[in-house]
């Protein structure tokens, strides 16, 4: 079930900014906008889309290139020309489909006012179908062809969670977030395992945790989860029913598949840059001792990054895991650096994840509010309902429980992905 609430009346490309609640699916709204306009108006709105102008330019560029290429492939630059032409081919195909569909649409227009009701009904049906095709080309096909394919699509993800302010309440919430991501990962066909966790002394909470999420596009989908997650609720332990605010800091790192770890060939670091330490003294060791002492700490000397791993009973496993985390941290630095460099050479609208930014708030209904407060809450239309607000999207989902169960999170991930795509598209169009 969709339970989408948006403040912004335009589905793209602007950022949705205010967390006010507005019940409507962006898709339905988008469609309604075209259908409610007069028919000609619909077409002219289509024609004015900046993306069309851009696609037309590209198609024209292609025909120009075609005229430059020699018939017998005799020029030195023919090969690169041919490649350029080939690259633009899918766009050309889509453009042809666009033009044909547009033409057909225009032809159905007069029939919409036909005297014969049967003919009219047919025309309405035809018209709707063509409009749908155009919308699809405009919203999906063209953007997909224009935005460069993600070069991180093959990467899995490491989700690092650290309890922030709020003491044990933050730790409890951290454990709930681990559960949320684990369940969401399962729903999305990924494999999630808790690679490392520090339980709260004698409680159910976790002080920190690292979750490994393996699967196609896991990193691309989860990367926007980096940032501060805030929970507002009355802790179970709070006697006088006051709402506490606690935070959990999340960093999502790109996890590449392990290339042969013992071969030591790695573009991110060389083996002699790593200091490997085993924790604690073992006395004589060997046959003298059978206590499990498997903790490992790695230090990447050039950056000073350290990774400790102790969750596995095998030192070998802990070492493997520690290397995975280290590689992910170094890969993350590399990607960030690349984004910064790109930003320096051209105008870059695409945001990178700001890890200190408060990105989301999880509000729990206060069942135990004193009656007077409930009264005020009703008047103010706030506080009473469970909800999750993503501050970047200005999106509030009223089904907090569904989000915490992992299903609802998908909606947020999709919306964030869409936002990213739109920003990338806009960047292409303004180049």
């Amino acid at each position: 079930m969709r339970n989408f609430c948006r403040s912004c009346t335009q589905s793209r490309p602007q950022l949705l900014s205010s967390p006010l609640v507005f019940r409507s699916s962006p898709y339905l709204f988008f469609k309604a906008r075209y259908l409610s306009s007069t028919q000609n108006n619909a077409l002219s709105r289509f024609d004015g889309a900046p993306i069309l102008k851009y696609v037309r330019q590209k198609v024209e560029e292609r025909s120009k290139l075609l005229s430059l290429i020699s018939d017998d492939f005799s020029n030195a630059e023919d090969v690169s020309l041919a490649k350029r032409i080939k690259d633009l081919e899918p766009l050309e195909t889509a453009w042809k489909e666009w033009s044909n569909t547009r033409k057909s649409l225009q032809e159905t227009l007069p029939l919409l006012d036909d005297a014969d009701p049967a003919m009219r009904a047919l025309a309405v049906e035809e018209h709707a179908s063509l409009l749908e095709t155009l919308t699809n080309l405009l919203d999906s096909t063209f953007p997909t062809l224009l935005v460069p394919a993600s070069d991180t699509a093959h990467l899995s993800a490491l989700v690092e969670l650290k309890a922030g302010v709020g003491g044990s309440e933050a730790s409890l919430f951290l454990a709930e977030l681990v559960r949320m991501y684990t369940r969401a990962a399962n729903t999305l066909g990924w494999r999630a395992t808790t690679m490392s966790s520090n339980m709260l002394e004698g409680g159910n909470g976790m002080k920190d945790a690292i979750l490994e999420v393996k699967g196609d596009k896991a990193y691309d989908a989860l990367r926007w989860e980096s940032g501060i997650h805030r929970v507002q609720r009355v802790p179970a332990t709070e006697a006088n029913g006051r709402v506490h605010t606690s935070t959990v800091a999340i960093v999502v790192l790109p996890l590449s598949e392990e290339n042969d770890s013992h071969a030591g060939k790695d573009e991110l670091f060389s083996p002699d840059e790593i200091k490997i330490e085993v924790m604690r003294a073992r006395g004589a060791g060997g046959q003298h001792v059978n206590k499990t002492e498997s903790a490992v700490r790695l230090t990447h000397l050039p950056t000073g990054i350290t990774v400790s791993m102790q969750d596995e009973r095998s030192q070998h496993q802990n070492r493997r895991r520690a290397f995975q985390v280290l590689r992910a941290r170094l890969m993350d630095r590399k990607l960030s650096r690349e984004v910064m460099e790109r930003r320096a050479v051209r105008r870059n609208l695409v945001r990178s994840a700001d890890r200190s930014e408060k990105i989301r708030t999880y509000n729990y209904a206060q069942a135990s509010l004193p009656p007077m407060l409930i009264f005020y809450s009703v008047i103010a239309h706030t506080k009473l309902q469970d909800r999750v607000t993503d501050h970047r999207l200005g999106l509030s989902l009223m089904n907090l429980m569904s989000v915490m169960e992992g299903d609802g999170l998908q909606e947020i991930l999709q919306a964030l992905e869409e936002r990213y795509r739109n920003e990338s598209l806009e960047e292409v169009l303004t180049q």
Partner: protein
Amino acid sequence: MIPAPSTRQLVVALKRSVGARAAELELKWMRQAVEQPPIPASLHPTPTFEEMLARRVAGEPLQYILGSQPFGPLDLIVRPPVLIPRPETEDWTIRLSERLRPTKSKPISILDLCTGSGCIALLLCHLLPPGSAHATGIDVAESAVQLAKDNGAFCGITVLDNGPPLCADFPKWDSNTFTPLLANIRDPAFVIAANLRPPYDILTANPPYIPKSQYDTLPGSVKDYEDPRALIGDLDSGSAQGLSFYHMIAALVGDKSRPILKSDGIIALEVGDGQAQEVARILHEQAQVHHIEIWRDPWDKERVVVGRSSP
């Protein structure tokens, strides 16, 4: 959920005995083992969490309670009183495997003395390419030979019951093979008695090396649960440095009338704290082993003596 008082008391007792941090991890591993037993119930009946906790507090090694010990990428079955595989051994076995370059067309034979759980031989078989390694494991304890067999099957390594394969038959095997055998290496005729097929390319061993004098000072979890035959390295009251087995192995390797190792074959022996130099000397002087290296373990102790046999 508040645990029952007895459980809580046990948790406190465990923390007192192994430290809060270690206890936290051990409790987690016990819970994991209850939820997902690492070993099928037919091979190791999983105790309840409370039973595990009580046994651990009583001093039993965690590995025996859980029934398993990871060893490199393998999960091995452990069963008292067979020696629990140690992380030091895991480390050097992986290192040794990286040094070997056998292929199916150029396979190697491995003899692992004092094989115990079979850990060294099995990890080598697992890490080396299929069909490139054929290992024989020798132990004096029936419990060890049985466990080594079970481990071979559990790890998906081909276990041969009818004695070690002939060198000439190696090319027939698409997989690596492991043959655990009951034999006493103190018996001068054991090579013939066990129907071994020397000479071997590799000889490995983690022989008992704890001096008798140190045995009484060992932690209870070692002394009270693990087979003293896998630990004590002194066979007679005469020597007391825990080196009896190295002398025996050196004699075996040095006997050129019946060479146990091929010329330039590799010998790798785990040693106890402070024994490496002496073992290197024994191998060099008594068995003419050359190109001797001493490898350190992750805790920076001299742990393995590696060398090559002379022609």
